[in-house]
């Protein structure tokens, strides 16, 4: 397998349903071992883009190549190397978890003796070893989602495409899933393409994110780069300071890149272009006040969230 070239390369990828444009000319490149967050509110064209990457629907216009192959012309070459977890994954309810995985192994042509230890290992990874011999019909949604993850990893993919994997998971489940994703990328070098409408939850594991809105890829880059791209960027730092005085207020407002510093009682709010937490803490110390608490909010992500995600709700 060649390691040269990107795993996903989309150019002007477009899907129209009649007069409605679901995906409007997106350009994307995903490299080996990368975790890419494909974010956007519901109905912004994420799933349709994924379907085109897997050859499950044909693009109206533009091209996409996955692992160097055209998914509509050469779907098998793509599907041998790519694991796909659909939005609402289903299993054969009358078969057990292990039987379902065994069937997937057969479909992938994995010999029995290789498949068995791998299935046991994966069931262990997704913490389903106790439920392995239970019919999937009795599984909870979270368990099915975890079995789905095992199912996707069974073929030892180079790239994993997860369509809204956090949907329907409880907070603990989401933390667990994100941990697994980080591990896949860091330890096994598997690239992860992760779609979600939960920007704030998934962004911490993503090397890069792309934000979809009304079928268009409106922003793309590292979270840090997005900060620079957005005018309203910057940080809001909130502090609780015991024994604050006017001299401290002046000193905080005078810190480099600070636009505004306001205080009411012990609460201080600093608006700045850069993260000035260290300097602010030093200033508090110099003025003989005691710092009780300090927090920095990434304004960019908040703004992005408000602009692209909540408009879909409104």
């Amino acid at each position: 397998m060649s390691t040269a070239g990107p795993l996903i390369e989309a150019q002007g990828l477009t899907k129209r349903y009649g007069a409605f444009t679901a995906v409007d000319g997106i350009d994307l490149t995903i490299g080996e071992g990368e975790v890419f967050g494909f974010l956007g509110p519901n109905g912004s064209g994420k799933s349709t883009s994924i379907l085109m990457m897997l050859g499950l629907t044909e693009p109206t216009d533009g091209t996409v190549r996955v692992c160097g192959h055209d998914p509509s012309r050469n779907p098998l070459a793509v599907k041998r190397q790519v694991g796909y977890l659909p939005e609402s994954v289903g299993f054969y309810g009358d078969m057990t978890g292990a039987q379902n995985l065994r069937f997937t192994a057969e479909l992938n042509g994995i010999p029995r003796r290789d498949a068995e230890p791998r299935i046991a290992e994966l069931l262990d990874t997704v913490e389903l070893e106790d439920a392995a011999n239970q019919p999937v019909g009795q599984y909870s949604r979270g368990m099915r989602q975890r079995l789905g993850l095992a199912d996707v990893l069974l073929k030892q993919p180079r790239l994993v495409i997860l369509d809204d994997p956090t949907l329907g998971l409880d907070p603990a489940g989401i933390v667990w899933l994100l941990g697994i994703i980080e591990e896949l990328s860091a330890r096994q070098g598997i690239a992860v393409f992760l779609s979600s409408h939960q920007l704030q939850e998934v962004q911490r594991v993503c090397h890069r994110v792309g934000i979809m809105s009304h079928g268009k890829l409106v922003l793309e880059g590292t979270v840090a780069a997005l900060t620079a791209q957005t005018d309203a960027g910057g940080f809001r730092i909130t502090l609780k300071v015991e024994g604050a005085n006017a001299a401290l207020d002046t000193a905080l407002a005078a810190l480099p890149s600070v636009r505004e510093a306001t205080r009411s009682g012990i609460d201080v709010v600093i608006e700045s272009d850069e993260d000035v937490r260290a300097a602010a803490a030093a200033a508090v110390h110099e003025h003989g006040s005691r710092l009780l608490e300090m927090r920095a909010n990434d304004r960019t992500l908040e703004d992005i969230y408000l602009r692209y995600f909540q408009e879909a709700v409104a």
Partner: protein
Amino acid sequence: MTALFFKELSDHFGRRRFALLLGLVALGLVWGAFVDLGQLASSGRQFFFLDVFRTTAGVPISLLSFLSFFGPVIGIALGFDAINGERTQGTLARLLAQPLHRDSVYNAKFLAAILTLALVVASMMIVVIGLTMFRMGIAPTGEEVIRLVGLGLVTTAYLAFWLALAITASVLFRNTVTSALASIGLWFALGFLITLLGGVLADRVVPDIETADDAVRHVNIESWANRVSPSGLYSEATSILLDPIGGRALNLFTIEQGRLEGLLSTPVSAAQSLQLVWPHIVVLVGMIAILLAASYVRFMREEIRA
């Protein structure tokens, strides 16, 4: 594809529809046990093992009529949720994310169901023939065996038609209930309505039967209408196969001709009967091919959304 084929096969023989399939074989058992063989034997007919399938002596309806009426239910039962069932279950997207061609999914399902039908038809026939042999202490002749194998093939093709119809419905309709109802609706339309309409049409075109010519035209219109219906084709084909003497008379015209030539009292050979049913088999298989091609094209280009 083999993995999917064997999974489908084990599904059919698994708990899901086992009762229905077993029911058909059990039916053969009941028929084989209750058919009034004494009455059959005393009628002095030549082809004993063929008559067992056609007779109503001792049973409410002949086994053949039963297959013709209710065989479609089995074909439909094996196919109505083939594709949309996977879709509702959410397994279709996962299945198609594995390295197998879309047509393999389709073919594996169709072939596994066909093999199931063939096995059920064969088991039922073997049960009936076996019971008859046991009760009478005679074995079928070579001639009868050939005709019975022909019957098995035609019956399987007939059930496969309804299977293909149901699989097509399962591709066209997202809901399994809708596809089941659509298949059953078409079963009524193709199985019964066409035959009735054929009679009405014949009465319209030839209102008064005065001459022999009129009679021939009347019957011809009816039998052509019958040949559009798979059930009509099936009854015609089976009567040719199981009734070596009267069955080859496809319409009044051949009866007249046969009488003139004095041929009607002697049976035709199995090879000749097979030659006569060949067109019926070709038409049935053609109908299956048209249905499958239509749903195949639709399925291959369809968007598979989870």
